[in-house]
């Protein structure tokens, strides 16, 4: 099994590693870097529990190889809070009760951040379509939409 030397920036810190060609990015994050906030839910790019930001774009890390991330800048749920201060999306999910079991939450929040960075004032339909690659089994989505709306307002200042 061939290996590759990769260097990625994860949540602002440079990480270098020797990885197998077949190592999935989500396993690299979870098992090599111990960033276990990024979850695995389906194996088929359907559920979005593994969503992270790749140079600012939301991607599903279960369907990318770690070696593809060489040179990329990644953000995971662990990188949302800055200096102990929660990101508005984290505040929104907490205050609007946008989570229950919490398993889809990191991916859902990362998809929301990507959405809001591209579209700071989304309509409800744009939020629903923007999160349509992420499945939640607990909340019925109503409060997730409210969480994103609150974060949008807060990010406007």
């Amino acid at each position, binding site marked *: 099994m061939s290996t590759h030397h990769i260097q990625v920036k994860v949540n602002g810190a440079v990480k270098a590693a020797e990885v197998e060609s077949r190592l999935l990015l989500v396993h690299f994050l979870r098992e090599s870097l111990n960033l276990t906030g990024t979850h695995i839910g389906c194996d088929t790019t359907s559920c979005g529990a593994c969503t992270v930001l790749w140079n600012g774009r939301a991607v599903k890390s279960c369907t990318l190889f770690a070696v593809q991330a060489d040179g990329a800048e990644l953000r995971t749920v662990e990188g949302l809070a800055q200096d102990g201060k929660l990101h508005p999306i984290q505040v929104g999910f907490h205050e609007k009760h946008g989570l*229950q079991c919490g398993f889809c*939450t990191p991916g859902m929040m990362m998809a929301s951040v990507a959405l809001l960075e591209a579209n700071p004032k989304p309509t409800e339909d744009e939020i629903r379509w923007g999160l349509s690659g992420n499945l939640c089994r607990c909340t019925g*989505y109503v409060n997730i939409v409210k969480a994103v709306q609150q974060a949008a307002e807060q990010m406007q200042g």
Partner: protein
Amino acid sequence: MAAVAIQGLGHPRKRVEDARFIRGKGNYIDDMKLPGMLQVDIVRSPYAHAKIKAIRTDKALAVPGVLAVITGETLKQYNVHNMPTLMSDTQMVLPLDTVKYQFQEVAAVLGTDRYTAADGVAAVEVDYEPLPVVVDPFKALEPGAPKVRDDKESNHIWHWEWGDRAAADKAFDAAEVTVKENIYIPRIHVASIETCGCVAQWNATEGHLTLYMTTQAPHAIRTVVALITGHLGLSEEKIRIVSPDIGGGFGGKVPAYPGYVIAVALSIVTGAPVKWIEDRTENMAADSFGRDYHISAELAGKKDGTLTALRFKTIADHGYTDAAANPSKMPAGLFHIATGSYDFKNAFVEVDGVYTNKPPGGIAYRCSFRVTEAVHTIERMADLMAHEVGLDPADFRMKNFIKPEQFPYKSALGWEYDSGNYAGALQKAMDMVGYKELRKEQAEKRKRGEFMGIGISSFTEIVGAGPSKDFDILGLKMFDSCEIRVHPTGKAIARFGTKSQGQGHETTYAQILAEELGIPADHIKIEEGDTDTAPYGLGTYASRSTPTAGAAAAMAARKVRAKAKKIAAHLLEAAEEDLQWEQGKFFVKGSPDRAKTIQEIAFAAYTNHPQGMEAGLEAVSYYDPPNLTFPFGSYICVVDIDRGTGEVKVRRFVAVDDCGVRINPMIVEGQIHGGLAMGFAPALMEEISYDENGNIHGSNFTDYLLPTAVETPKWETGETVTPSPHHPIGAKGVGESATVGAPAAIANAVVDALWHLGVRHVDIPITPPKVWALLKEHGAALEE
């Protein structure tokens, strides 16, 4: 310093568990990493029924990093190749010679990590000889059908019946009107976003097993493990089950699955911690399913619309073994809630369990033991009867509801309903949705050839299992527990026999205790899921946490308060009977200034307790509920049918729920939202089916469609509050109500939209192809 708020009953307290989840610091099973941990992966059968002629492991063992391959023969040496199901049937952990369903476990490979274990699985060679397959339970009952189980006489598992057959038959013979329909409630899967898994850690020196696992019922699992492995010397005090954060349960994490046993066996053999994590296909194709009930339903009534009798006959497909998670005395669960919200004088239900070459089950899909099957059927049939006698479905329901003054109400099938106001809930839903105006709009649209439907579901649930005289699982009575310790500084820790999977117990249990003790909820730590520390309980499923453990919390708190009163009397030099409780303190009647707060009393319990009294301030309660609780509600769904595509669009969905006293309204509403989404899903999207060879359709999220934020309707919720008279705080449980009640409202709306064409029934999931076929059949499809 400002006083800390109590945040007791009715407070929309923000969740304490969120702190870790929003930071990605949850502790789910696959996040665990122990030194030297190995990973197991499982070889699974491509056939639904086959003889295993040979398993060759040499190539797998040659894969670098593969440490062991085990088969049924390996486990047989220790007599753990089979395990009992919760219904006392037998389930293979690994087979000796035959497989009975597609994706059944065949062998297990232990590797240094998940990749090498998967390499090993790919290298195991198995020779199969395919055998005849039976997937249809009706065919399975025919003479000459392929026999699923070699150890049983036939494919018929059991017959169960309830009610007075002769009286029901007599009422049907005398009926002025009868309606009959065959209703199939298809096989579905809870599909929690986290799959199942475990880490087994055997300590050879101490002969001790710690099993971290995704279980909704850690104590029951500990006892089951002890029963399975007791002959090997692994007795219950040497077993610790830890259920970490769980990424959704919905019933799917109640049973014990072969993977858990395999991981334990491999940890014992190797002495290393062993992790087993399902992938999504394994989860969908091999874990317990929900539903799969084929129901032939009949109602009898008078011409004026008065219901007189009910008969439901059901064939229940259990797959190759009865691995349902029901109370042991109730093979069809609580299906005998089938009379629903209506005042039937006569009722009879019967169910026959059948073996087929499909995965074992069935567990509940976010509902209390077969309640959705019963509710869906009675609510569909109520609509049929309403239309038959020419009454509006709302008027028909109002006419037949059990009246508020009839509670406590003894149903024809023997339940004692605790409380209800069914007409009140339906009226509120009708007001919220604007029912009369919608009927007008529907009539106008129909004239224009537009198909709009309005569907009602006025459900009654039965939750909170349950009273020990009737309810046990493998003999374990279905009480639940709370243990409270109040610390000297007036803060507290409380532990429970239940296990949250997203329900927010860390938040809401503290609110019950805060209400009862006057200690702020923020000062009470809640723990669950570790059998070494938590008091024994039967776990979280069937909406039982609030009715049982929530009640135990109130009762334990009241025990604490009783002792606190004695200490307060000592501190205030007053007689106990002269003291009065006001939230958070005792004071002398008539002298409100002579008071001791719960915090002062707690301190005294450790520093200045009365002579002759034991120190400390703690209590435990094992609560055996005197009855079940009966949450209810009325849902109204408005749909528009696309005559060009057959698509059903849910325009509005109004849900009025009555779950008694609401502990935390924010969390209750969140649970209703989620429950509605899991009612919408099987009504319109989800189904697992099999072809004639037993190949599964719907084993991953590209085939088995979970609703996203786009399809999911924007729910409108309302409430009425009818407290449970027997629950200490009047609460009833709510986590599953919406999943139970919603599908019938949607199905009724679709049939209502198409009734004038002659459509009388459509089975869920109501997919566009099904509706399109109905439109075509009745000449109403728009084809261009």
